[in-house]
């Protein structure tokens, strides 16, 4: 291993789901203690902490966790970056270790979202007695629902529909079939919030949220946490053979934002920044998409998964529909995608998601994924998108 390589030494995720008796600090602590134990290290070994949480972003979750697990005085970076919050926390640890400021770093992400309902979209309150323009559009009344939609299921529905308009071949049924795949995958994942198989009829017949996304085609709000210990190649060489054997190489760690495109302030462009992140990540890792054995991508909605096949270059440009219809992305296909069940069934505790998908990939590379193991997996990719937008891509490689 090269001295300036980055490695995951330990990693852990809690079960996703309802955790009514645990608060944010409990969940984060469970993930952090799990990752430290997995790596055979302690809080005293950590030179930096990246702490991710979205809904309580002002609370200083990093220091709260230190106050339970170890106040070592090292720098904490509390980060919040929409659904890319976890990946951003991981990037913090990676950057610190890569720069040589620390030889080991901790990253964790945590969220409690059970029962949260719709995220974003303005409630319509009493309107003012006289129309008064306010805000950047000089609006005299709330515009969510009057000038398009701000709710996530609706935004991502349009993102999938736009792909269909550009390349053809999409339908309500096609998007529902993507969800059918992920729900089917989830039956093998004991850490998933929902692990029930759902038929196409059940999915299409469920409550419509924003056409074509029905409820099971939307990511599941739930509670959960995930944590990872990042170590430099130089430091890893000084650790035990057992630690070296289970370490997973971070072959690429990339974060991008959305560059300006003509329509990007009308409908968020989740495509260009994902493609940019993927290009950078493949270049860093020195591999191409065909080298991947599994992919965990950000299926916050079934309509989103389709466009990311294309954005991550898992298929030809414009070919995502044919690619999915070929069966490639099922767990027995040529490019298994979201074998964890994805955000639609595993769940999406926002701050945790960008580390939990890295955990999923790492667990397959270590050959420890149990019933859902992708046999012989050597290279995998984890992707998240936070609307606004931020995209995290990590490529992991099995230790040689």
């Amino acid at each position, binding site marked *: 291993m090269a001295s300036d390589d980055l490695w995951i030494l330990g990693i852990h995720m809690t079960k996703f789901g309802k955790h009514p008796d645990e608060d944010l600090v409990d969940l984060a602590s469970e993930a952090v203690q799990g990752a430290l134990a997995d790596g055979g290290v302690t809080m005293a070994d950590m030179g930096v902490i990246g702490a991710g949480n979205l809904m309580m972003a002002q609370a200083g979750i990093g220091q709260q966790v230190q106050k339970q697990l170890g106040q070592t005085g090292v720098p904490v970076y509390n980060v919040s970056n929409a659904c890319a919050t976890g990946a951003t926390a991981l990037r913090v640890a990676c950057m610190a270790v890569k720069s040589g400021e620390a030889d080991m770093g901790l990253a964790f992400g945590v969220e409690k979202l059970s029962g949260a309902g*719709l995220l974003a*979209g*303005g*409630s*319509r*309150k009493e*309107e*003012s*007695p*006289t*129309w008064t*323009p306010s805000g*950047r*559009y*000089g*609006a*005299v*009344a709330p*515009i*969510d*629902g*009057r*000038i*398009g*939609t701000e*709710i996530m*299921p*609706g*935004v991502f*529905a*349009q*993102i999938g*529909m*736009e792909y*269909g*308009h550009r390349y053809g071949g999409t339908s*309500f049924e096609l998007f529902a079939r993507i969800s059918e795949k992920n729900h089917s995958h989830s039956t093998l994942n004991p850490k998933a919030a929902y692990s029930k198989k759902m038929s196409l009829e059940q999915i299409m017949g469920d*409550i*419509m*949220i*924003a*056409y*074509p*996304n029905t409820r099971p085609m939307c990511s599941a709000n739930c509670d959960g946490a995930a944590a990872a210990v990042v170590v430099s190649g130089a430091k890893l060489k000084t650790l035990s053979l057992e630690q070296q054997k289970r370490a997973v190489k971070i072959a690429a760690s990339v974060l991008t934002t959305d560059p*300006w495109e*003509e*329509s990007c*302030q*009308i*409908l968020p462009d989740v495509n260009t920044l994902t493609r940019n992140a993927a290009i950078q990540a493949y270049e860093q890792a020195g591999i191409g998409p065909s080298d991947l054995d599994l992919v965990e991508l950000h299926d916050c909605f079934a309509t989103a998964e389709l466009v990311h096949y294309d954005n991550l270059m898992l298929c030809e440009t414009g070919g995502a529909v044919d690619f999915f219809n070929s069966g490639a992305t099922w767990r027995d296909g040529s490019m298994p995608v979201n074998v964890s069940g994805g955000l639609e069934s595993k769940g999406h505790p926002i701050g945790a998601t960008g580390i939990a998908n890295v955990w999923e990939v790492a667990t397959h590379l270590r050959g420890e994924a149990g019933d859902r193991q992708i046999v012989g997996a050597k290279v995998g990719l984890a992707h998240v998108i936070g609307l606004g937008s931020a995209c995290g891509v990590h490529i992991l490689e099995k230790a040689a």
Partner: protein
Amino acid sequence: MAEQIPLVDYLVLGDEPHLVANQCTGCGARFFDRRNACASCGKTEFTKVGIDTTGEVRAFTIVSFAAPGVPVPYVAAMVDCGGTSVRGNLINVAPDPEHVSLGMKVRLATEVIGTDEQGTEAIGFGFEPVGG
């Protein structure tokens, strides 16, 4: 006739209602909000330009589940108006997949949003099917 006020400042009322954008004098990028600078090139000078009132639906969704107080279902869309993308609802059309489609030709239409204590009407906009 009652006094009228547009729902947003980029909607121009009158005999021929239309939308206006802030167009960057440097690169031509168009924006509907108040600007500090151009997100594409960073220049700070803009001119007002009128936007085509007809266009084509590039993306839509039918929202059935919204924040409290927002009437559903409604059709939210992105419309390509002569090369400028515009966000708006599809109106004067049944909000179901049988009546709304990708590539559908539409035109700008206005509607009354409500009336305030002074009797002033707020006027919003949407897009309706052409010839529908």
